[in-house]
């Protein structure tokens, strides 16, 4: 039997608001506002630090509580307007890891007013066969918002213009990396456990080197940390039917627990805790294939004398492109796994062997 995963209207609306908010690295204000509006009834206090991280603490009531940081990044990959060529044509730079091959022909939104524009490309009628063999470099691309008065200035941000949709078991939208993680954190704050002090960091500038998380961890100085992110699923079958051995993660198989990526070796005690909790609660999970890449854990775990850390990701296809695809079930199961895991953390947790 296929289990159906239910999202309330409110939850879906929140995911939509988060996905459609504009927030390239360094310009996360809009996302921060959406989050604050959502969590305000549940918190007594919050802090926006010098780099723009939104820091929220919910203290538990038990004795001997560990301080547990949870982090998800607010920023997304996107573009920054670099120069005005006149007539509504703008040069731009990319912010974060974007494959330039995917840009021509994409619709974008520019600046505070979300002005629609397009990354133009010469149509097939006017290109030669050899031109079509090569990628168009970023320097040759322009964002076109049309002529007439506009308030766009160099330094303004632009993002992919993609409407968020729930389609059957799937979520389709831009910036699912890491607005899904942001939504998970919001759920954790709303239902904070009593056995720990929950320190939630909605971080900035992850996509350009986990810069926000670094200072957030220093402020919190937690005993341990969970990072909630989105990781690519490269799970389509191979064209020649060979076994796909580089899938990274699979959609629909549950939250992806990290053992090792390019920036962090997860604390073995935390990996074990997540696995055991998932098994106990019958929540499906998968291990992300060890390899490269990195999350906010990469800077968090080295801060302030060392912070045992682990990442959990919601798998997403087509990450860092105009439209990603994730599964509702993976989102729901990630929330469930983290809630159950946080509740099971005892004060003596760190005394156990690392093995």
């Amino acid at each position, binding site marked *: 039997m296929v289990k159906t995963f239910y999202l309330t209207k409110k939850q879906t609306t929140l995911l939509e608001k988060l996905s459609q908010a504009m927030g390239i690295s360094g310009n996360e204000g809009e996302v921060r506002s959406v989050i604050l509006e959502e969590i305000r009834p549940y918190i007594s206090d919050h802090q926006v630090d010098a780099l723009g991280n939104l820091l929220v603490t919910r203290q538990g009531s038990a004795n001997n509580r560990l301080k547990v940081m949870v982090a998800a990044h607010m920023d997304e990959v996107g573009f920054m307007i670099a120069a005005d060529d006149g007539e509504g044509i703008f040069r731009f730079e990319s912010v974060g890891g974007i494959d330039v091959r995917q840009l021509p022909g994409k619709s974008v939104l520019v600046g505070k007013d979300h002005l629609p524009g397009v990354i133009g490309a010469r149509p097939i009628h006017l290109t030669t066969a050899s031109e079509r063999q090569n990628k168009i470099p970023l320097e040759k691309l322009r964002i076109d918002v049309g002529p007439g008065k506009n308030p766009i200035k160099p330094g303004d941000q632009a993002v992919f213009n993609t409407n968020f949709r729930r389609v059957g078991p799937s979520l389709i939208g831009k910036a699912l990396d890491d607005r899904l993680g942001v939504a998970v954190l919001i759920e954790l704050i709303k239902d904070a456990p009593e056995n720990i002090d929950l320190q939630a960091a909605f971080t900035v500038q992850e996509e350009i080197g986990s810069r926000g998380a670094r200072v957030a961890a220093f402020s919190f100085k937690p005993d341990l940390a969970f990072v909630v992110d989105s990781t690519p699923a490269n799970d389509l079958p191979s064209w020649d039917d060979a076994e796909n051995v580089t899938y990274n993660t699979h959609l629909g198989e549950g939250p992806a627990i990290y*053992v090792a990526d390019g920036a962090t*070796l997860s604390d*073995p005690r935390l990996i074990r805790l997540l696995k055991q909790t998932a098994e106990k609660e019958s929540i499906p999970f998968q291990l992300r294939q060890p390899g490269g890449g990195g999350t906010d854990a990469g800077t968090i*775990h080295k801060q*302030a*004398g*060392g912070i045992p850390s682990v990442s959990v990701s919601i798998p997403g296809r087509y990450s860092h492109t105009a439209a990603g695809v994730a599964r509702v079930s993976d989102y729901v199961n990630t929330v469930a796994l983290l809630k159950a895991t946080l509740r099971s953390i005892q004060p003596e947790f760190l005394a156990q062997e690392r*093995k």
Partner: protein
Amino acid sequence: MKSLIQKLTETFSPSGYEQEIREVVRAEVEPFADEVRIDPLGSLIVRKGKVGKNGKRIMLAGHMDEIGLIASHIDENGFIRFSGIGGLVAHTLLGGRVHFVNGVSGVIGGERIMDVGKTLPVTQLFIDVGASSPKDCPVKIGDVASFDRPFFDMGHRMVAKSMDDRIGCAVMIESLRSLKSSPNELYFTFTTQEEVGLRGAVASAFGIDPELGLSLDVTGTGDTPKSRKMDVKLGDGPAIKIKDGGMLSDPRVVQWMINTAEKEKIPYQREILEAGTTDATVIQLTHAGVPAGCLSIPCRYVHSPSEMVDTNDVENAIKLLIALISAPIRL
């Protein structure tokens, strides 16, 4: 000393999984320590002494971890695909044997070689542990392994896997054992996760907040046929690092090390290492900055399963380290 080196190098503990080596080191140092603690990232911090007259708080760092492999996929026939932990040298892998931390042994095989002039990249290699399906494979995704090679004593030379940096650990352990007295507060720090980017030392240096930092690690040599140009040889003494790929040693620290070696008539070499770096790099940048340097043990075939050091170099490194930390230091 050799039996200690054998014990250390025959322990399997890749980065992030230093449990076993930490226990081995702990047993060796505990009788000589004033305080032993494990920090949040797993580094073993052994304090000896208190700051006395003209003394300093000194962090000595040698890393316990070694390069290794991590299973990334078990295929339908039970072969294990893997990624590296730390800087694997692909052309030393094929045909090698590995030992998983969970006790399973395996051999490294490769896909068909289409061009004999080319090394197979890690993505075309796999580990065979004798399984024939994911179900009967005793290794799961995320399990870690390191090279499986026994220690080999050639007399004036020693060969083993993970000389990098168990030899630095051995120098620290032997120095702690033989140390008579010191005005300094010494933190013998056996760090973790060095091979994946000096991560353990970042954390432990912040915690210790030292006034002086010294790492004990291996360095390359330029003394083998058609090797890279490097003015360090096996057998010419421990090397005093002046520069490597990540750090300019504090010139005062370099001078102090050279002066001490000359005064004690201990042979030494001046080291410039073009690529690679050590824990001292991150110690140097801790808090508001820390004068730092590195005492290196020359080592051939670094990051291969057979790393070679010279016995006299190791003994002289111990002598020099003891001389360095036994007296007041004025930079």
